[in-house]
């Protein structure tokens, strides 16, 4: 009785389950119907990283815009956004759900190095494209040969730091460099790029201090950096901490040459820093995307398109640099789908994304191209040095193409 009971139960239930499924084999890849393409993403929309969550909403606004015009080759894009709270332990089951239950065609725009690393092996083993992850961690592009279903989009952090290294050596030879960096993959990736980029000049770095995101502020670290006698400061931090650090530097009556990273440089944040008391003298960064608050793009066609598109997202602040990022990467996604034409298979789409892109994106700085090839799996590698003066960023020189091998 005790043995046959459960076995009988499982047999009965499994027969029912078999009767329920069965039927025809899918002819096309999952997520594709004659009228729709299903994409999925897990992104932080709550918790400490919630400010990034608007990226997916902005991308969705662009998809809505395209859908209103008839979609891609007659198919509308259905983008399912799930909140993983920046926690890899949530990203994994939610991604599995999107793939196995919601049956998405591909994952697009996943955010965060830790969450996307957690799901990378699973997606590659299941041969589901992990497209255009929203992180500049170099590994997502550099490790293509071992993860051929994964591709990034934004310039790799290490490439960006190499540009800073080149700029420092060219314009501030003999500088004494201090680095403030966040003690996670983000900050450490930037630091590595800087150290590698300086090469034999790495001794220019006289001090480095790290901080954890649980710190109340970075005053202690910046005090120490100032005391080291450095005259050049690199801030590799997320926007909130960058703003506070800029204020603290001014408070400490310290006027180094400042380099800050591209994630933190949207003008909205610089404005917040200025209002909070930062002097913002001698600040350099790099840019690759147009800033919605920059008046020089006011009559630019790309910017006008962005303003139209972003209206489709009721919770998106049009001035937020994250939102134009979301729209720009969605543009590339649609481009890939268009290029795939009627051959909408996962293999073809990831092949185009990782080796067949040659795109001019209206939301990126003029001249920046999104390109990938058989030996180049870094979609965007061009950035331009920008310096801050009188309430705005100003482009300096020309685009620098920084390849990271």
């Amino acid at each position, binding site marked *: 009785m005790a043995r046959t009971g459960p076995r009988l139960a499982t047999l009965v239930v499994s027969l029912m389950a078999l009767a329920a499924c069965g039927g025809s084999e899918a002819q096309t890849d999952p997520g594709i119907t004659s009228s729709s393409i299903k994409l999925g993403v897990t992104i932080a929309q709550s918790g400490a990283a919630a400010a990034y969550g608007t990226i997916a909403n902005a991308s969705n606004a662009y998809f809505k815009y395209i859908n209103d015009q008839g979609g891609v080759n007659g198919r509308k894009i259905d983008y399912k956004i*799930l*909140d993983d709270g920046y926690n890899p332990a949530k990203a994994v089951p939610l991604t599995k759900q999107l793939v196995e239950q919601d049956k998405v065609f591909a994952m697009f725009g996943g955010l965060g190095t830790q969450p996307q690393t957690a799901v990378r092996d699973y997606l590659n083993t299941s041969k589901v494209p992990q497209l255009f992850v929203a992180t500049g961690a170099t590994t997502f592009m550099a490790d293509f040969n071992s993860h051929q279903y994964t591709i990034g989009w934004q310039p790799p952090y290490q490439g960006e730091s190499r540009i800073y290294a080149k700029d420092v050596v060219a314009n501030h030879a003999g500088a004494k460099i201090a680095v403030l960096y966040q003690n996670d993959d983000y900050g450490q990736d930037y630091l590595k790029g800087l150290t590698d980029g300086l090469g034999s000049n790495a001794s220019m770095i006289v001090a480095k201090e790290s901080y954890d995101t649980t710190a109340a502020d970075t005053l202690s670290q910046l005090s120490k950096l100032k005391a080291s006698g450095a005259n050049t400061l690199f801030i590799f931090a997320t926007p909130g901490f960058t703003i506070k650090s800029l204020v603290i530097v001014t408070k400490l009556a310290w006027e180094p040459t400042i380099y800050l990273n591209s994630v933190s440089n949207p003008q909205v944040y610089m404005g917040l820093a200025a209002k909070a008391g930062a002097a913002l003298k001698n600040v350099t960064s790099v840019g690759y995307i147009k800033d919605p608050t920059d008046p020089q793009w006011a009559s630019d066609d790309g910017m006008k398109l962005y303003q139209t598109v972003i209206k489709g997202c009721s919770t998106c602040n049009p001035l937020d640099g994250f939102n134009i990022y979301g729209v720009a990467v969605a543009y590339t996604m649609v481009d890939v789908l268009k290029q795939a034409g009627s051959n909408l298979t996962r293999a073809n789409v990831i092949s185009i994304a990782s080796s067949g892109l040659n795109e001019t994106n209206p939301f990126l700085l003029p001249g920046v191209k999104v390109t990938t090839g058989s030996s180049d799996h870094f979609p965007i590698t061009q950035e331009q040095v920008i310096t801050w003066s009188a309430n705005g960023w100003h482009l300096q020189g020309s685009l620098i193409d920084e390849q990271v091998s």
Partner: protein
Amino acid sequence: MLSRVRRAPPRYWLVLVVAVLLLGLPSAATSFQSSQWTQVLIFTIAIMGLNVLVGYSGQISLGHGAFMALGAYTTAILVSRYHVDYLLTIPIAGLVTGAVGFLLGIPALRLSALYLALATFALAVVTPSLIKRPEKLTGGVQGILLVPPEPPQFAKDAFATVTNGPQMTSEQWLYYISLGVGAVLFWLAWNVIRHRPGRAMRAVRDGEVAAAASGINVAGYKTLAFGMSAFYAGVAGALYGLTTGFVSPDTFPVELSFQLLVGAVIGGLASTVGPLLGGIFVYWLPIISSQTISDQAWIPTQISDVFVKAGPAVTYGALLILIMIFAPRGIVGLLTSAYAALRKRLLGPGERGSGQMPPDPQTV
């Protein structure tokens, strides 16, 4: 023997039904759904341990996520660096975490309920930054990747024969491992509670001074409870790491500790089935409040949008407050009082029921 079966309380039949359902689940559900229920089982295991600590020995812990982290990292390091068999790492993770929990239980003796909550809360908040520090050991922020274990051949074949269908996937194998571990740990906890240690802990919980005066080794049982609950959390952590396939500092935020305590309380403290109910509640609520509601076509978009945006956080908080006000003894408490009220109605005045002990009062 048959008369014993006939006289068994109805509860025991319920347990049997639940056991059958849990055993049969993977053959009826998809592999993904099995993985969801594996998560429920993992939470249940951790909450079982927390139940012993909070429900039976009366000490509050807001930091059991830290113990899960310890268990998960023990497994991850042993498997990825020292190539220990993953099944073996589960008890090892439990024992290591249990030992640490026991040691932490010693200073905890000096802390009253509120201060213990505060100290363990601080522990939970500081855990991610502590994990990031010893990079060589923990992999720092890069975390450690774990390959999902393949089911052994005999399991695959057995499963295929029984279901007359596909072979067992690694998710289903992990489900059965979690179920087996859970069953063993349930039996262990049940026996501890039923016998002297359980009675001693309850005495300590209900009146520490009186218990000490009766000759109970208060310090010993309290630290034992701490160690035991840490052991359970360590095992749950090991399974958590194996099923997620990845451990990293951000995998164990303070929310996890909070979820465990909430699960223990909502399920019903000092009850045997409470942990399972708590695990179900804690796992499914965020999914229901953020996805199921927005998937329902009959709810107007404005309302469902509010739910998704304000989503889990507001629903969670509001629900917690409401439950604490109206059903502080959790789901089990609610069911027991409903059942008792029903019996009183049906049996009429004068009938005193089966003479069972009244449910444990919550005195923490």
